[in-house]
């Protein structure tokens, strides 16, 4: 079932556009142009709300307060005023994020998807990313059912990436947190471990991606997805 999004935006042209972008990205949208109407909606009917602040009828922050009273519904604020007070107040009242106008359609969709992104599937102490299953408790990893013969550092490296699939992990952080502290590892040492890990992943070595200027990332795009993620953009794989 498609995620349903409540959009409250009074500007006719912008509202129509945003509805188009969201629907194009696979979401179902209910669009309201008045704050008072938004107060009557049941938050449980939605996966997320996108709220403009300057609305006719009830002010955007009042709608936010009403939504927060009984619900944990993620709320994204559309802020047109470059005013810090508005943003701080919105975050204090429980808004999850804000997007400042003017924004590109892709920017809004990315923010919505980030907010709705489900955490990596973790069950019974295991993390599953596509063909990869990491048994955290048993300190074992399988790819396509094949048990990988990993050293302690290789396993910790894979686990660190698997905990945040799709996110680039800072090379300096990996050196500090994964390598053996007694051996004074460097980034060069880290690269050697990654190289060995990739060799052991065999045909699935593309799971571990190098990210320019940052470090490494576990490619989440190969994960089984029910969300209908779009293919990567023209820039190739990105964080």
């Amino acid at each position, binding site marked *: 079932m498609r995620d349903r999004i409540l959009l409250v935006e009074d*500007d006719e042209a912008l509202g129509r556009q945003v509805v188009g972008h969201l629907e194009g990205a696979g979401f179902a949208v209910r669009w309201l142009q008045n704050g008072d109407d938004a107060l009557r909606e049941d938050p449980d009917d939605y996966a997320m709300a996108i709220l403009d602040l300057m609305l006719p009828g009830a002010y955007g922050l009042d709608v936010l307060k009403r939504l927060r009273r009984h619900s944990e519904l993620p709320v994204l604020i559309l802020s047109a005023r470059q005013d810090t007070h508005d943003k701080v107040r919105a975050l204090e009242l429980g808004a999850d994020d804000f997007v400042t106008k003017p924004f590109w359609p892709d920017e809004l969709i*990315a923010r919505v998807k980030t907010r709705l992104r489900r955490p990596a599937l973790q069950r019974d102490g295991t993390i599953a990313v596509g063909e990869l299953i990491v048994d955290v408790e048993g300190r074992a990893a399988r790819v396509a059912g094949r048990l990988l013969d990993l050293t302690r550092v290789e396993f910790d490296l894979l686990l660190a990436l698997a905990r945040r699939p799709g996110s680039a992990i800072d090379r300096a952080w990996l050196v500090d947190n994964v390598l053996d502290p007694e051996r004074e590892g460097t980034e060069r040492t880290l690269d050697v471990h990654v190289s060995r890990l990739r060799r052991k992943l065999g045909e699935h070595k593309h799971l571990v991606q190098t990210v320019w200027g940052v470090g490494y990332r576990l490619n989440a795009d190969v994960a089984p997805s029910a969300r209908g993620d779009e293919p990567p953009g023209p820039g190739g794989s990105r964080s």
Partner: protein
Amino acid sequence: MRLRARLALSVIAAALPLAAATVWARHDLTRRRVAQVLREFAVTRMESGGRARCEADPAAFPPPPPPPARDPDTPPLPPPLPELGAVPPQPRRPVATDDIETAFWAYDASFSSANPAAPPVPVELVAAVQDGADVAVRRIEAAGRERPGGFEALVRMAWTTGPCAFVLVRRTGRGFEGGPLELLLPGLLVGAGVLIAVLLASGPVVRRIRRLEADVRRSAAAHYDASVSVEGGDEVADLARAFDEAAAEVRAHVAAVERREGALREFVADTTHDVMTPLTVLAGHLDALRPVIETADDEARKALRDALAEVDYTTSLVANLTTAAKLVAGSRALVRHRLDLCALVERVVARHRPLANARDVELNHATPRGSVDVAGDVTLLEQAVGNIVQNAVRYNRRGGHVAVVLRTDAGRFEIRVEDDGPGLALDDIEHLTERGFRGSAARTRSESGRGLGLDITAEVCERLGFDLDFQPMEQGGLAVVITGVVA
């Protein structure tokens, strides 16, 4: 000058001439009194037989006095003169009464005496009687303990001829020396007493003024919100009330200025809102044309690319102008609150990813798990980081890279934006960040539009207490680093 010193000076300034006049008046009175006493003495002596004795034997006149009387009841004036001709001429001895001695000599109209013991008549006394005075008096200065000071007077007799037409009377002795200086001493004592009394009396007034001063300082420190508490009906209380009235006017003026400033900020915010919404719609329309770009001819493709770039430029221009307006407004417009740098970096990257995609630049980022909180103004800091990322993306080459990495270490954070584009020369960066965010910096494009808003980034970092550093990369490109303290 302090109030007490000023009061003392005023008292001295007012009292000095008065004391001088009083001393002079007393001195003059004394001279007159002495002149009268000595004249009466001379006249009495001459009229009670002195004249006859003098004219009879001027060389022996006056006869020497008897030994000093031992009787304490002896009258202050000289004792009766001896009988005429009873004593031969000999040096004149003064007539003594206690410590006071009186002596006199007779002179003819040419001021010479037949008595060889008679002293010459002082010239100033001669001049005075020749001017027509009946009596002329002058002071005799004391010369040590042996010769006490006093007065001498030249008295004109009623008869103008003969060897005793003038009589010189000299009276000396302790207690009869009252010159101006002796008269000045009690005046000085009284003056000093008055001065001390004035200084003591000014104590309560000075204390009230000091209290008023403390109240005024406290009120000023509280932006004139506290009133001063000095009460009463005197001039100090009047001053306190006047200050309260002035403070009320200052408060009213400041409130009016703040209202105007608030209204202006509101106007700018509303205007920004009115511009931003249609700009978003325009960006959406242009974005919708992107799929068409592949099939369009070169001219149309270039036009669309330029239009997208202009929207991007206009967007950052409006945002930077709003930021510049905030920075110009000063600390009043700067909000310090707790903000999460992870979310901020995510937003900045999400904002610039469409531009990066359109330019075929790979935009990567990494943040620690959880949140990294700092104290700052989210709008300003997001604009500051956004300007760096935007420059890194916009002036990169096709297929280039930009990475935004947030790290924390030992209570400090680091936001590092690296690119592998041609970058800006360090000289250019220094030039861009040094020209200041005011003036034309936020409005005008630099040559080729490079470095837009970097001056604003530098100013924001300075205001928030963060460090901004530019480091050329070994493989080309540039790293821009913001560091600061974690909240």
